[in-house]
């Protein structure tokens, strides 16, 4: 069955903080509504059968030869069957049996499956293992064959049929519930409940069941359709309860009593279609429910899923086309290698596009390390990804230019863009450490990247260069010939850096490159990045929330807040004399191990949400120096002496600088 193990899409920014209510999410699924309507109709007919049916199929009649297999007429809308009974009426009464069996059997399956799944998932060890073995056993035995045997032995009464279908149909639910339980059990709030001292029963009832229940119900709806089918099958092969009319029974009678030779399609088609109708209806409802209820919960960006798809996109696969010819660069004091101007990005949401990055501009020179700093949701990662046009689905670059050595990346056609990515501008993610190919040695992966970019260096040349590069990032020749899984987190990040450098890019972007690493290694990786930038004459952008990192490795700093660049300055300038109130407060909130006596100050309030961005200055609601103008007008980035700040308070100063 469709075990719902969706992998949540990697989240860069969560533009929609508010998940849809499950009911509303369900109603957004049109097919689900159609399914619900189909089921509703079937239920209505089943309940109202005594009122709706033109004849009573249970009334005993003595058919004459003239009554049998009569084609549809005004008197019998769907004709008559082998016993001269009205097919339409049988069909309506048949709905009662089919639905009754379907729902009660599924309910039994749910009870058994849920209990087994919960216990097997929660209680690890022997009990859980044994329960799973039992489940596996039931899963591999052919249901139908066993059903036929059992029903043949115990006798085909309606109760027996329900019990047999229910008792044999719980395995899919059990497996789903178990896997869900296993994953919910690992979540922190369950551990928190255990730490509080809660018992296993309490945790299962209060924490696991509510989270597993929705998917369990969705699965049960699908079990219903299976049960309806199974009942029909049993009845069709003559193992139905002979005292009641069901759709399978109708089919059975029609087949065994000459409907085919009599050409009486009306005795065959309607019950067949009725079965399809109910099964299709339940399947649609079940699928829609699963979609609607699958909780895609907001996660924090620091623990976002590895951005594997981005890396895949980056690396492409086939050999790259020639990079576009870019003008060669004169050294020092020259135009920037990367110029970003007016970059504006929005994300789609139910309530219209939300602006995540607003009019961001900055320059990056060769050999320079720029720190892009800000709180989560400030747009720093979105900005970094947009430089390579790697925005997640829903993200759109509205305006702006990203000019790399005279070429606007945002205007490049797709094939040329691929050549620029990775070769001229590459990126190191925090989560992409697992993105190394597990079946190839690290050295061969780096060599492969080099040859992809520069086929002329040949196999030997590429191997040599790969070895040198890996040595430079601190991976010895011996270790380079190992597979990635033997590497520690820090080693993998080094390998990723080597991979990113393989094509000698002009610009390297590192998005929180050390967040997932241990403290002792963080410093080394950052030093390495900064050194390599100078050594290779690259422009380096380090995206981080850690101002300590910025202070130690960056030359310039761009501070982002609420999607805007609020201040940009040389690192010494910024730390010594911050101009924007936000920067000032941010600096005072950073712990400094050298001044343990200094108590830290937090910035009151929280960063603005995208859907509630202030009209004026984004920082106004938290700013201690706010005045009227800040609420209505957004300050531009004023140019000061070799630095910029977007605050009205520096306006007089900016005028003085200009004049």
């Amino acid at each position, binding site marked *: 069955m469709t075990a719902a193990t969706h992998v949540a899409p990697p989240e860069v920014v969560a533009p929609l903080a508010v998940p849809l209510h499950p009911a509303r999410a369900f109603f957004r699924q049109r097919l689900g509504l159609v399914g619900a309507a189909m089921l509703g109709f079937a239920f209505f007919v089943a309940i109202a059968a005594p009122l709706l049916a033109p004849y009573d199929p249970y009334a005993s009649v003595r058919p004459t030869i003239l009554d049998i297999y009569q084609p549809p007429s005004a008197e019998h809308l769907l004709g008559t069957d082998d016993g001269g009974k009205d097919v339409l009426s049988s069909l309506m009464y048949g709905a009662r049996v089919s639905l009754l069996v379907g729902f009660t059997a599924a309910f039994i399956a749910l009870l058994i499956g849920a209990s087994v799944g919960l216990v097997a998932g929660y209680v690890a060890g022997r009990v859980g293992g044994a329960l799973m073995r039992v489940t596996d056993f039931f899963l591999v035995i052919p249901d139908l064959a066993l059903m036929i045997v059992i029903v043949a032995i115990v006798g085909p009464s309606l109760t027996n049929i329900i019990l047999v279908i229910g008792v044999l149909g719980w395995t899919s639910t059990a497996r789903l519930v178990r896997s869900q339980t296993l994953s919910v059990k690992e979540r*922190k709030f369950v551990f928190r409940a255990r730490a*509080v001292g809660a018992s296993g029963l309490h945790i299962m009832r209060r924490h696991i069941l509510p989270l597993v229940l929705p998917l369990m119900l969705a699965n049960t709806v699908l079990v219903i359709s299976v049960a309806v089918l199974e009942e029909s099958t049993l009845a069709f092969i003559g193992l139905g309860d002979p005292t009641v009319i069901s759709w399978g029974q109708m089919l059975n009678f029609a087949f065994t009593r000459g409907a085919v030779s009599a050409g009486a399609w009306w005795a065959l088609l309607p019950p067949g279609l009725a079965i399809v109708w109910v099964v299709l209806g339940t399947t649609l409802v079940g699928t829609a429910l699963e979609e609607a209820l699958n909780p895609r919960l907001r996660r924090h960006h620091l623990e976002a899923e590895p951005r594997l798809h981005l890396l895949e996109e980056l690396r492409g696969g086939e050999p790259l086309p020639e990079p576009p010819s870019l003008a060669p660069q004169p050294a020092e004091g020259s135009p920037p290698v990367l110029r970003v101007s007016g970059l504006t990005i929005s994300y789609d949401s139910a309530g219209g596009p939300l602006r995540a990055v607003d009019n961001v501009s900055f320059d990056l020179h060769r050999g320079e390390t720029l720190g892009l700093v800000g709180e989560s949701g400030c747009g720093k990662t979105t900005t970094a990804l947009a430089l390579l046009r790697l925005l997640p689905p829903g993200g759109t670059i509205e305006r702006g230019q990203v000019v790399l050595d005279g070429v606007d990346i945002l205007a490049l056609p797709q094939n040329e863009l691929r050549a620029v990515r990775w070769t001229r501008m590459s990126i190191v993610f925090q989560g992409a450490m697992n993105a190394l190919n597990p079946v190839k040695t690290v050295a061969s992966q780096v060599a492969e990247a080099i040859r992809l970019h520069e086929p002329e260096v040949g196999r030997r040349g590429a191997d040599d260069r790969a070895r040198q590069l890996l040595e430079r990032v601190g991976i010895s020749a011996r270790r380079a010939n190992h597979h990635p899984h033997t590497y520690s987190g820090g080693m993998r990040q080094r390998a990723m850096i080597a991979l990113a450098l393989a094509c000698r890019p002009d610009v390297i972007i590192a998005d929180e490159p050390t967040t997932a690493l*241990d403290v002792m290694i963080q*410093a080394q990786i950052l030093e390495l990045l900064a050194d390599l930038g100078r050594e290779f004459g690259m422009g380096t952008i380090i995206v981080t929330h850690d101002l300590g*990192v910025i*202070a130690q490795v960056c030359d310039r700093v761009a501070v982002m807040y609420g999607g805007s660049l609020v201040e940009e300055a040389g690192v010494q300038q910024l730390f010594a004399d911050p101009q924007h109130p936000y920067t000032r407060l941010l600096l005072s909130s950073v712990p400094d191990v050298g001044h343990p006596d200094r108590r830290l100050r937090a*910035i009151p309030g929280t960063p603005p949400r995208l859907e509630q961005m202030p009209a004026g200055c984004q920082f106004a609601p938290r700013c201690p120096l706010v005045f009227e103008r800040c609420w209505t007008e957004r300050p531009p980035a004023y140019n000061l002496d070799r630095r910029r700040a977007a605050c009205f308070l520096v306006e007089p100063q900016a005028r003085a600088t200009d004049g």
Partner: protein
Amino acid sequence: MAEPVIRVRDLHMQFAGRRGLVDSVRRRPAQPIRAVDGVSFSLHQGEVLGLVGESGSGKTTTGTLLLGLLRPTGGDVEISGKSLERMSAADLRRLRREVQMIFQDPYESLNPRMRVADIVAEPLRVHGAVPRGAQERERVAEALEQAGLAPAGAYLGRLPFELSGGQRQRVVIAAALALRPRVLVADEPVSMLDVSIRADILNLLADLAETQGIAIVMITHDLSTVAAYAQRIAVMYLGRIVEIGPTADVLGSPRHPYTQALLSVVPVPDPTQQQVPVILTGETPDPSAIPSGCRFHPRCPQAFDRCPLVDPPLYTVGPQHGAACLLVESSAHYEAGDDEHDAADAHRSP
């Protein structure tokens, strides 16, 4: 000095190691993982102790042992003078109220389907601490307001997704406070939060220690986080405390080479002060293969011939300040038998 709230004596925790395929075939026994390998310290009312170390240092396992969630394989935890070891299951449950935990990830540690009121009331209900109804509501509101979520009424009906990260962490703290514990174990309480709100949470914890007299064990990998908040810092390496002492002493004149290295890599938010990080060589610490002698010697920049041979005890190097390094041996003077002396308290014969 008063009786400590928590006293940990020579705590050990071993987990069964995993065997690789080769090991199983060759019938080699699995190497046990010695996550905690002889940890001793004590903690007084209202004190904040920073437990600092890399991943794999055993700091989180130590925290879990304080909660009584795991049975230590050796040593003992005493809470308010009562030993966890000799305690019945029922007593242990009662004692659990006294020690509560705060977790790293406020986004994951709240059940997304539960409202704030229920989350904070849950510990009370689990322990049957107060009858449901007015009394429970009062305690929940009290806890929320202590955690800085005032007025409590504005938060009771909310679901976690409606709260910011900082607010969520406050809800976690409120749930921990509901049982009026004497000890809080805070495992990386701010590492998942934005820089601008970290100080709020840390200030809140410090206030709780100061005004309510709650003892706090703050577990972190980041020395700078605890610098301004902990009265004492204990540095862990491979399951053992290698240096412990008053914050100013440990940060100002660290005696263990590992502490010195750790301190040298903390990014200083001051570009004029360029750091010279002490880069440690050698393999990353592996608790299933603890080196002989001093466990730090393969990575120690100052290791000498005796280090692989002698497992150094915690030598007293100053008032309440101890370091487990042979380099300080000559200058050390430890006063065995003095119970109130933490460094001595932690001393083990090699």
